[in-house]
């Protein structure tokens, strides 16, 4: 018998995951595993060009191919007013192109056939006559004189500029810079990458002609929000739309947006009266769905003669692709980038951002990140290390000198964030001691004298996660609360339903543990269900590390509500006064007489069988939690690298990660999340790149070009922990899934730059590949 079976499964226990059984047996329910009666298959024809006018589309031959039931074009969609759809950033996006194609891989037509193979076959027979137009492939090219106008579909759009956005105080920042002892500048490009969950996106749309009910199985991290968007886009009444998000094979932000394939499959099912399945292949996933980053950033840090940070000034150009489809709270055009002052007490800051259309895929998603906090964290942490190197101060010491101190919390940053809690020096000290920093620094000196290239990188990130509160943070007007509905059955077992949606984070275990802690029902007895909009309470979904901060809080609150009702039931059973009862996890007893007690299970049974006069039956409740503030997880990561002068190859020798995410509900799951995020951070720092040639051809469109870290490349991680509970979260938890992806890229790259700094090299943009390192060394005259 597993040790797990004997555990209550409360907060802080590393119980094994409840969801594992089906996955281990190959019985997970991923989208492509579903087969509905009479189901047909859809394949999408995509543009080979980045920018071209569509002169004509001929579908005659394709329509006559074996097994083909229908060929759908933009014209057909337009007849149903579905050729365009709204994006999550208030722009519009083509569902199927009618006028132009605006990025390589854009959806042009769809074939619906009896089998997947037949649908794919017929794509080649659709004839599209294109007039190729010049492609715009960067913000610089987008703003150049005479640049091709990408969004000529939009009234009043005269150029490729999307937005200008600012945060902070320009005047005070300028004044501080005028008095600065030194200004350190870093210009860096955080390149486009892609979340690439191992399962691609897809859907099965099943519109029942008799009832009008549209059941759409969909790879969605936010099924409720999608339902509302679908209702608005299609005009179907919302009660007739049911989104079911089954087991997800990873998401990392890629499964937040609404994709054209979902809309076309739904329209096809509506028109044909049969369930329509559409599953992307990997190429389609990489070239057309939500990418991440693509920020060109310039940061200036002003310091005084003592190394005290005085001011921060940042400008960034954002490459948003052909449609402004970033998934982010609507008030913030560049996401939460203005957290860019990070862990430092910088008195004033000014951030400006401009977004541009380019002929690249749309949909800047928060790839394992809370809305652009990753780019912000990367910029400040790279800038701080560069400043330390330039000033000749130890990079750990420079950070400590400028950290927001523990007694300053709650701390209001120069751009207006109210940091809830933190102890940055402590996390730094734990990391340095775990690393053996003092000794290592001596070792680095010795080895450098021998001509070796070696370095240490540090990043002390601060994240901002767990959106809302709702008044400040919304998606298309939907406030960013989240929900939990708890039903305790007569036998004391329970079902918990939530507005979030796990993609591997282990919600079925973690949230059962919150109930176990707060209501005393063992985690094993609590089923957790998410993803079916007909059964789960409304919520905004899982991304931006918001599940534990928001839905986890909702779970605690609904459990506490039920505990109060259970107290009344126990008082009734014990014939005692409510106020005389003492709660001990799992039972109530009479103060001073611990032998007179009733368990939560007995109270639950009474809720259905033996009620006090006037009480409603049942032990059920629902709670919608609107967080009073964001949570601010933080940590210090430290990396040691060796660089081969001959080949430019970087070897990560050590990676120490100290995370503070407040209270850890299941430490095993938390550490698993950190491992995964550190591996993705490694991939972003050294391998993962989506790029484009001058004609807008996507390079990185399959797993042979878009390099994902495997077991051989991925370093081994050494984890450490501090715990500073969130003061406003009912459990003190902060969320953790994204911290390692946010914090680690800067730590990896800082280590490389530290190693190369003796040669005067101050920056290499990610991914830091061997050829770039080799070229940088050669440019400084370094050979073997």
């Amino acid at each position: 018998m597993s040790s797990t079976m004997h555990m209550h499964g409360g907060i802080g226990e590393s119980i094994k995951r409840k969801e594992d059984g089906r996955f281990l047996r190959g019985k997970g329910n991923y989208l492509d595993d579903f087969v509905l009666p009479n189901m047909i298959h859809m394949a999408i024809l995509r543009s080979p060009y980045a920018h071209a006018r569509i002169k004509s589309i001929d579908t005659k031959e394709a329509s006559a191919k074996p097994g083909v039931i229908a060929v759908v074009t933009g014209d057909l969609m337009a007849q149903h007013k579905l050729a365009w759809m709204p994006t999550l950033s208030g722009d519009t996006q083509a569902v199927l192109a009618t006028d132009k194609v605006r990025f390589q891989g854009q959806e042009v037509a769809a074939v619906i056939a009896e089998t997947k193979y037949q649908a794919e076959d017929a794509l080649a027979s659709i004839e599209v006559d294109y007039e190729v137009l010049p492609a715009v492939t960067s913000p610089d090219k987008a703003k150049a004189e005479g640049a091709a106008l990408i969004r000529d579909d939009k009234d009043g759009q005269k150029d490729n500029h999307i937005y200008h956005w600012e945060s902070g105080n320009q005047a005070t920042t300028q004044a501080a810079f005028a008095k600065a002892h030194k200004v350190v500048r870093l210009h860096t490009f955080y390149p486009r990458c892609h979340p690439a969950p191992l399962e691609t996106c897809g859907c099965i749309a099943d519109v029942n002609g008799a009832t009008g009910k549209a059941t759409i199985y969909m790879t969605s991290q936010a099924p409720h929000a999608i339902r509302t968007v679908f209702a608005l886009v299609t005009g179907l009444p919302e009660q007739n739309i049911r989104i079911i998000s089954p087991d997800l094979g990873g998401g990392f932000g890629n499964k937040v947006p609404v994709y054209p394939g979902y809309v076309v499959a739904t329209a096809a099912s509506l028109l044909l009266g049969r369930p329509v399945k559409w599953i992307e292949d990997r190429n389609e996933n990489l070239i057309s769905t939500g990418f991440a980053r693509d920020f060109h950033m310039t940061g200036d840090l002003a310091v005084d003669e003592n190394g005290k940070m005085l001011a921060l000034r940042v400008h960034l150009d954002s490459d948003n692709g052909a449609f402004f489809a970033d998934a982010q709270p609507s008030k913030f055009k560049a996401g939460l980038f203005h957290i860019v002052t990070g862990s430092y007490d910088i008195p004033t800051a000014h951030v400006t951002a401009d977004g541009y259309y380019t002929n690249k895929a749309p949909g800047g998603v928060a790839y394992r990140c809370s809305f652009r906090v990753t780019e912000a964290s990367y910029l400040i942490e790279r800038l701080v290390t560069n400043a330390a190197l330039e000033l000749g101060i130890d990079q750990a010491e420079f950070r400590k000198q400028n950290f927001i101190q523990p007694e300053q919390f709650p701390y209001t940053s120069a751009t207006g964030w109210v940091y809830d809690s933190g102890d940055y020096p402590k996390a730094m000290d734990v990391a340095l001691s775990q690393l053996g920093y003092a000794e290592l620094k001596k070792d680095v000196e010795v080895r450098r004298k021998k001509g070796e290239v070696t370095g240490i990188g540090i990043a002390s990130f601060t994240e901002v996660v767990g959106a809302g509160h709702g008044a400040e943070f919304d998606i298309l007007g939907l406030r960013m609360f989240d929900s939990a509905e708890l039903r305790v059955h007569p036998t004391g077992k329970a079902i918990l339903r939530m507005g979030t949606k796990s993609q591997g984070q282990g919600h079925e275990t973690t949230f059962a543990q919150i109930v176990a802690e707060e209501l005393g029902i063992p985690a094993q007895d609590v089923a957790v269900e998410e993803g079916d909009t007909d059964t789960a309470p409304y919520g905004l979904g899982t991304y931006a590390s918001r599940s534990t901060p928001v839905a986890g809080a909702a779970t605690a609150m609904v459990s506490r509500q039920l505990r109060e009702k259970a107290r009344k039931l126990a008082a009734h059973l014990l014939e005692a006064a409510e106020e005389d009862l003492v709660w001990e996890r799992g039972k109530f007893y009479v103060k001073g007489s611990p032998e007179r007690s009733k368990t939560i299970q007995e109270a639950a049974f009474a809720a259905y069988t033996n009620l006090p006069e006037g009480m409603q039956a049942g032990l059920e409740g629902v709670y919608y939690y609107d967080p009073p503030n964001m949570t601010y997880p933080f940590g210090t990561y430290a990396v040691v690298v060796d660089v081969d002068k001959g080949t430019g190859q970087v070897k990560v020798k050590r990676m120490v990660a100290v995370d503070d995410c407040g209270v850890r509900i299941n430490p095993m799951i938390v550490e698993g999340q950190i491992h995964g995020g550190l591996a993705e951070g490694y991939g972003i720092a050294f391998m993962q790149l989506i790029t484009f040639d001058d004609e807008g051809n996507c390079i990185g469109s399959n797993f042979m070009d878009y390099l994902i870290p495997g077991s051989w490349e991925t370093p081994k991680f050494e984890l450490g922990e501090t715990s500073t509970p969130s003061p406003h979260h009912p459990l003190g938890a902060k969320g953790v899934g994204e911290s390692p992806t946010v914090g680690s890229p800067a730590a990896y790259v800082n280590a490389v730059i530290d190693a190369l700094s003796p040669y005067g090299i101050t920056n290499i943009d990610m991914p830091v590949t061997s050829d770039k390192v080799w070229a940088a060394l050669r440019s400084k005259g370094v050979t073997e």
Partner: protein
Amino acid sequence: MKVTMTVNGAERSADVEPRVLLVDFLRSNLLLTGTHIGCDTTSCGACTVQLDGEPVKSCTVLAVQAEGREVKTVEGLANGAALAPIQVGFHEEHGLQCGFCTPGMMMVTSALLERNPNPTDDEIRWAISGNICRCTGYMNIVKAVKHAAQMQAGAAKAPEHAAVGGGGE
């Protein structure tokens, strides 16, 4: 054309086009959906099955190439209700998160343990280097395989299957 093979110990046959991939045959014809498709280019290993005991990526094998041969998929790992040691290892060491790569990982590593019952960390990492996991960072997968190796050597005691059983049900 007709193709016949042994899948998880039972003879299975179907009429398929010559171009049908083994992964599609398993998933669509036999409804063995535990074998997943992640990339189409033999890069990710989500579709890994064992063909005559050797791990192969079934997105790059035609169903007809398996004619007369033995195929083992994730559905063939457990002995009825009792999980195989490799499955127990993944559970006990938290070697899976979203679960999508897990069947492929287990088919590779159970084959590894057949020929090398006591692999080192590096031998495990090398064995799974053709399989991508986006969630775990591989640390716990390595531990899971070692756990299974120990179990097979009788050093670790297997939990009863119920511990990994019906999830929340």
